[in-house]
């Protein structure tokens, strides 16, 4: 068990052509479940490789506990890694693959044969691969192989687990179950875990805290709740949450909020505070979560504007609507039994207390970074 600190880490590939990570810093606490969320190419896998010691940093420092491991070999770091690309030993059975990390010479004294067998059975059952122990990787489906790779990381009790998209290849149902089991295992064992994913739902579901990474740079670090409720900038606001947050052009004045293309709403305390901090121009970007759009009867007196329903996507109890107002397109998340038909015209309003304010140029959240 240990904390992990990443300090001003940078990494380039191809002689500087590709800047994979730029001055990345964050601290993972002991026993924390920490997620690294970002789109493809954000630098997630690179970070895992650097923390594991599989690749060397160009600049910066990596600490595990209070020990600087920047120049240490992978085996000296005592972390267990699972990669999205399974990396199983093809000529070994599932059982042998799972036993491998426990049979390293340095661990000979810790693990008796019985202890190994018990641990393998325990982990295999947790991951639902108990019946596959005598098969070879080539006899397994992609999802099964991925669970073996994950099992091989979890079988040991190292200082930290580093899991790189460990359940990406499972089907939706199994992924949901595995996610629950992982969260449970982590909670019960209390082993510091770093977990990468491009799936915002997965990060929100699992993480105690998380970092949002984009193009090798940190966009925000925080709890899932902080990141969902107070996104640091428009990138985070739109990357986290489904469907993505609606972003509107707007301008503020003492009396109200003018939303370009939609209409005008009365000022709120927050909008007035933000206006005070704006030095040059009253232009801002306003973000609205799809579930915060309110649909009204057509022509309702309290409607901000009228909108046409362009698409209705029924997900079950919830439906996603695509709404158009002139050239503007908005997404709304609404209860299916209240959802209007495709092609219908309905009234639309938004409670301005629900607004998120962003700087029109820097795109930063004006409540977190005033002026």
């Amino acid at each position: 068990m240990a904390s992990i600190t990443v300090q001003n880490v940078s990494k380039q590939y191809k002689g500087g052509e590709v800047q994979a990570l730029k001055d990345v810093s964050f601290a993972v606490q002991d026993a924390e479940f920490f997620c690294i969320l970002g789109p493809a190419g954000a630098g997630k896998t690179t970070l895992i490789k650097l923390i594991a010691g599989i690749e060397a940093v160009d600049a910066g420092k990596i600490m595990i506990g209070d020990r600087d491991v920047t120049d240490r070999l992978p085996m000296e770091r005592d972390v267990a890694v699972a990669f999205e690309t399974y990396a199983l030993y093809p000529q070994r059975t599932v059982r042998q693959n799972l036993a491998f990390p426990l049979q390293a010479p340095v661990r000979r004294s810790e693990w008796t044969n019985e202890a190994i067998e018990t641990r393998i059975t325990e982990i295999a059952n947790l991951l639902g691969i108990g019946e596959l122990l005598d098969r070879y990787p080539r006899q397994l489906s992609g999802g099964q192989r991925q669970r073996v790779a994950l099992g091989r990381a979890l079988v040991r009790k190292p200082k930290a687990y580093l899991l790189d998209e460990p359940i990406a290849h499972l089907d939706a149902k199994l992924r949901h179950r595995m996610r629950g089991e992982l969260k449970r295992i982590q909670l019960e064992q209390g082993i510091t875990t770093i977990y990468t994913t491009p799936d915002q739902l997965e990060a929100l579901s699992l993480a105690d805290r998380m970092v949002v990474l984009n193009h090798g740079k940190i966009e925000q670090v925080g709890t899932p709740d902080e990141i969902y409720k107070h996104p640091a900038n428009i990138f985070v606001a739109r990357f986290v949450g489904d469907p993505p947050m609606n972003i509107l052009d707007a301008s503020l004045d003492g009396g109200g909020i003018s939303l370009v293309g939609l209409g005008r709403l009365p000022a709120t305390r927050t909008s007035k505070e933000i206006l005070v901090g704006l030095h040059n121009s009253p232009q801002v970007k306003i973000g609205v979560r799809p579930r915060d759009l309110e649909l009204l009867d057509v022509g309702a007196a309290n409607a901000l504007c009228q909108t046409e329903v362009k698409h209705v996507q029924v997900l079950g109890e919830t439906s996603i609507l695509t709404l158009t107002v002139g050239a503007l397109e908005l997404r709304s998340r609404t209860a299916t039994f209240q959802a209007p038909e495709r092609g219908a015209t309905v009234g639309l309003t938004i409670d301005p207390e629900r607004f998120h304010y962003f700087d029109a140029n820097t795109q930063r959240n004006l409540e977190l970074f005033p002026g």
Partner: protein
Amino acid sequence: MTSLTLKGVWKIYEGNVLAVKDLNLSIQEGEFFALLGPSGCGKSSTLRMIAGLEKITRGEIWFDHTLVNDLEPRERNVAMVFETYALYPYLSVYENIAFPLRIRVWSKEKVDQKVRWAADFLGITELLPMRVRGLSGGQMQSVGIGRAIVREPSILLMDEPISHLEARQRARMREELVDLQKRLGTTSVYITHDQVEAMTMASRIAVMNLGELQQVGTPKEVYARPRTEFVGGFIGEPPMNFADCEIQQEDGRFFAVSPSFRIPLSAELGDKLMARKGIAKTRLGIRPESITVSAQPTDYSVRGLVYVLEPQGERTILTTRLENGEYFLVEVPPDFEAETDSVIHLQFREPIHLFDTASGINLFYE
């Protein structure tokens, strides 16, 4: 515009491997129809039989009033869009789209006119002179669609065309494909293993499993009234909860009883159970959003432990562990909080679905 009818279609591969069993489907002209199911359910075999790429073992396939069983693929005038674009990387976008027309004895002008129409329709006119190699995934998919529609096929078949795209792009492509199909008006059959795609895109869905048709219906129907346990569990995320239980009657009231719970059923369900006497054991299905939770017990509430809590922004998914070890998922409000392993009380609200324990068929599906 062409309608498509499958009558008692079977596909049995060599070695007596059953892929499709007695499939009956009637797809209307201009419809966006989805074939949904997990891998091995028979959806791809069905698509290939419609395209003529696979012989039908038994049964009939009709395009309008034409029996197409013995027609060659090219005589059927169907077009396919695949997950792998199957484009020619070193040819231009123009040549890729024009390719299906080259086998016809058409004038250069006519081919040119068609290619430009398809490109304009998809908004990719400016890509025409470019080589396919170097295009983005979304652009390549557009070219693939262009090549499919340039012949103005009578039926458009789409085989998981967007399943490899990244989540956000996939969400956008779902809408684009629906728009495209609406404007084109071509009868379309869309194959997918992703229930979200089928639910959000299709006007009707056929759910298949292990070669057998489970249900045909609109997205709302298959969600609200699953014909089988399989459909109940396959449609909807997080999935429906299931538990074996017994039906007991007491003072004219019906109860669903298991070692974990004893819950009263509504008069409506009770009447249906009355009408079908003799149902003792059944499989109960309830969606995560039909369960509410409270810290204190209420009448007939079900005791469970908090196993895992997963906040997801818009909602939170709570996994509970009931008395006899069953896991039940509950959708709770986003601000819900509870300690792991603390006791919690569940209230089951209808709709509650009751399935036959042996056949998996919904006892009250009409």
